[in-house]
């Protein structure tokens, strides 16, 4: 209970400072919109149904992109982590890809895919695949070789070894990779929705910038912060459900 209080303490303090600063006139509205006008913008968006539409459109793009990208990153990471051949085939290319900021791919992807949905999903997929690969590969590499050797000795091979021993043992890293994937995909989303989009929370950022609506800009930031909280909570929940053996770990 104490920990929960401490956890929300700092955000709460920031909120109070913002509220007080705006209502007392210490923060001019062209620097930071007042909480009341941000709430007004939120009400407006809810009333017109745009918020739901935008969130759904973005969720669809991000979900599909992360699913494809993280799936590919997971497969490649496991392949490179388990087998020497897989490592030699995959790892040098992925390490090179890692050095390329994915935003640099935007012009190329537009010339290949146009500015439609494909471009957006591919961009998010690429942005998600790289961290997924990197952390999965590391996680699989760090699985205790001795345990794997013993499991091989007890007759586990191929997919039974991968699914029964290696992936569960690498799961902490894989879930951390998932957490990073989700936050990177938000960046990908903003980049993708700045071009050729008519809905989505990235589009909302562009709109706010175009019409210089500070209340919308602040609202977007709060939406992103909220999404970050939700992703974090979701991954924590998955960690609890998918790794029940960790709940019982006692420090010795």
């Amino acid at each position: 209970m104490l920990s929960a209080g401490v956890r929300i303490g700092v955000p709460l303090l920031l909120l109070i400072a913002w509220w007080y600063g705006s209502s007392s006139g210490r923060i001019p509205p062209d620097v930071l919109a007042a909480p009341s006008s941000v709430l007004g913008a939120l009400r407006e968006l809810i009333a017109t149904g745009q918020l739901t539409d935008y969130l759904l459109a973005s969720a669809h793009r991000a979900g599909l992109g992360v699913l494809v990208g993280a799936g590919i990153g997971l497969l490649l990471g496991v392949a490179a982590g388990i087998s020497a051949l897989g490592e030699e085939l995959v790892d040098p290319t992925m390490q090179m890809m890692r050095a390329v900021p994915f935003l640099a791919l935007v012009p190329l992807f537009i010339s290949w895919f146009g500015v439609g949905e494909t471009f957006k999903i591919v961009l998010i997929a690429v942005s998600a695949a790289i961290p997924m690969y990197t952390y999965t590969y590391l996680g699989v590499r760090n699985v205790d070789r001795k345990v794997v050797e013993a499991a091989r000795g007890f007759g586990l091979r191929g997919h039974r070894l991968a699914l029964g021993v290696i992936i569960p043992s690498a799961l902490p890293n894989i879930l951390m990779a998932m957490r990073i994937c989700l936050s990177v995909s938000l960046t990908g989303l903003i980049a993708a929705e700045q071009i050729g989009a008519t809905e989505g929370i990235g589009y909302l950022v562009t709109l706010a910038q175009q019409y210089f609506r500070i209340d919308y800009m602040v609202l977007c930031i709060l939406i992103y912060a909220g999404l970050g909280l939700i992703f974090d909570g979701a991954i924590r929940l998955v960690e609890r459900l998918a790794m029940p053996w960790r709940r019982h770990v006692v420090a010795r």
Partner: protein
Amino acid sequence: MTEPTIGEQHADDDLAVQISGLHKAFGAKTVLSGVDLEIRRGEFFALLGPSGTGKTTLLRILAGLEVPDAGTVLAARRRTTVYQEPRLIPARKVLANVTLGLPAAARDPGRRALAEVGLDGYGGAWPATLSGGEAQRVALARALVRDPEVLLLDEPFAALDALTRLQMQELVAELCERHRPAVVLVTHDVDEAVRLADRVAVLREGTLAVDQTIDLPHPRDRNSPSFVDHRRLFLSHLGVVPAASH
């Protein structure tokens, strides 16, 4: 050097392990140079040697984890290993670890094996909740449930505290007495070898320097004159000269 021969010992053969002319080198370092060894079914064989002499390599060759450079290795088909570390999969419950790689029908034998090592009812526990001694007993149950003809023990007590080690040695002696597998115990603890084994050998410079049957009744008193004699013999072969006893 001739190609190594690796094969299966006939089920009706009196020998569980038959090794001859075994050679193994890692790079320029020769660890086994012409080892000959026969172990009868049901015999408890202990292999002593200073660290780095290749006793674990010999065991790993028997386990099928290393391939020799030359020589003949014939061994009974069902062989299983207990390592120095329990090597349990943290993501699987204890029973699933015990029956790892076995069909679902092995769950009941798995529970029985757990009961035999004194962990009745631990099947649903996670490995992370176990103490070091308990985890090693799970590893023992995992070996036991496979009904091994040859049980390979790679310093299985080395990582345990002194009291737990004694209890585990007791348990292993009792289980081997009941199930009668051929046992190969690799250890650097002379007392442990003399206490448990029917036969003790010392591996030195790649060959078996001494191979001695221990003909003492169980349980063995480590202060009895014959125990002390055996200890002194093996220690001198290990290059350690014990202080003269009074």
